């Protein structure tokens, strides 16, 4: 039942091509996950701040954005990008670009909510103190509020990064050669589904579990004793 040899034979393809993204195909779980996390977080910061803006014409589009993407499945967003990006940009877009855009746009809605909650958790007096020191609104946000908010957000951020990391497997639907797709390619030739699916499950698990352990560690270190 458990054929470890099949894993050993295909290990270079699965790990180098599928997991890291080195090889003949455009792919790689990590190569998609890392930029998605960084760019999604940056967009999320802007959306989180916009959700708290005093001007309604900034706040409302941000709210609609968040509520929209939180009500739609990610698979749907991936298909939207897949069909709409070539039409709008009038050129063909590689799977990597489509997947990256879909993940950034989708996860930014969730990350934006975390950023908003983080900002709201900073004591009101800090804003007033920043203003009293003569900092402008954006300076106060940049140097006083955000650094403290980020610290409070770390546990929920890492949880969301884990979700994003798992979600990158959906890029295989449009043919991106990530770990899941690489495994399917190998399985089509070898037909050892049990061993192969269990193997990639364990690879994903090692990554996500170490991330969640790290989140717990940070949470304990930051919580007031």
């Amino acid at each position, binding site marked *: *039942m458990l054929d470890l040899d099949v894993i050993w034979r295909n290990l270079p393809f699965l790990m180098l091509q599928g997991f890291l993204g080195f090889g003949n195909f455009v792919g790689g779980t990590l190569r998609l996950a890392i930029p998605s996390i960084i760019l999604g977080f940056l967009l999320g910061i802007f959306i989180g701040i916009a959700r708290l803006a005093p001007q309604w014409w900034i706040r409302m589009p941000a709210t609609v954005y968040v509520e*929209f993407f*939180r*009500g*739609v*499945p*990610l*698979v*749907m967003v991936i*298909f*939207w990008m897949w*069909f*709409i990006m070539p*039409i*709008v940009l*009038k050129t063909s877009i590689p799977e990597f670009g489509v997947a990256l855009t879909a993940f950034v746009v989708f996860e930014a809605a969730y990350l934006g909510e975390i950023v908003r909650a983080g900002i709201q958790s900073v004591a009101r007096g800090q804003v007033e103190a920043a203003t009293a020191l003569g900092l402008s609104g954006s300076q106060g946000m940049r140097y006083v509020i955000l650094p403290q908010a980020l610290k409070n957000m770390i546990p929920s951020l890492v949880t969301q990064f*884990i979700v994003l990391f*798992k*979600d*990158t*497997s*959906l890029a*295989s*639907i449009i043919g991106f050669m990530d770990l*899941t797709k690489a495994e*399917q390619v190998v*399985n089509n030739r070898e037909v050892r*589904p*049990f061993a192969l*699916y*269990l193997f*990639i*499950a364990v690879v*994903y*698990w090692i990554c*996500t*579990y170490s991330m*969640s352990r790290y989140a717990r560690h940070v949470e304990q270190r930051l919580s007031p004793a």
Partner: protein
Amino acid sequence: MNYQFKWSVLWTGESGQWLLSGLITTLELSIVAWLIAIALGIVSGSLRTIRFWPLRAAATFYVEFFRNVPLLVWMFFWYFAVPPLLPEAVQQWLYAHGLEFWAAVFALGVYSGARFSEVLRSGIQSIPRTQLEASVASGLTTFQAYRYVILPVALRLIIPPGTNESLNLLKNSSVALTISVAELTFQTRQIETYTAKAIEALTAGTVIYLVLCVSIASIMSWVERRTAIPGLIVGGRQRR
């Protein structure tokens, strides 16, 4: 942008029928998976808070392993890897009754159960430990204490995060299209394939998902108000 819109593809031909059958399949899949997820979540979430360590360890293993691996991998696992290991009679039944649907139900149910388990565990842990001690002191067994004292309170406390998880389950059911379950996203793609009108088809699917999510969220916030424990759940979710 030289895209020719043709919204009539949504109400001509078989589109409407496809969307309706996709919606029904999505709901069937989500409801059966939800029942499995709730059952697994209540059992494993409770076991994670008891003293007897072998059961606690088993529940922890279940939650940490199933929750931390992508749902897509579980879909393929239950569809391709598990059926060949089952007894012949069960395989025959599954092939005759839509293997892909049941594989999707199990993948979604077992995966979401691990997520529900975490929600319930935090709900149980937010109840003062003295409640359990008081129930045991008044002569209840641990099982009875959970059944009659801890769980009724915990389940009411977790309605808001539980609703979030239920909506995640509904949205995650779209992953079942990868093992060709003809649910809503699958049917949306089918309309696109037949009519070559991607934007119209995707709009229809997206609107249905949005309406589903918004209606479930409002029903659940009504349930939350009805089941609020006076004096215990002070604010709950923000009232609109």
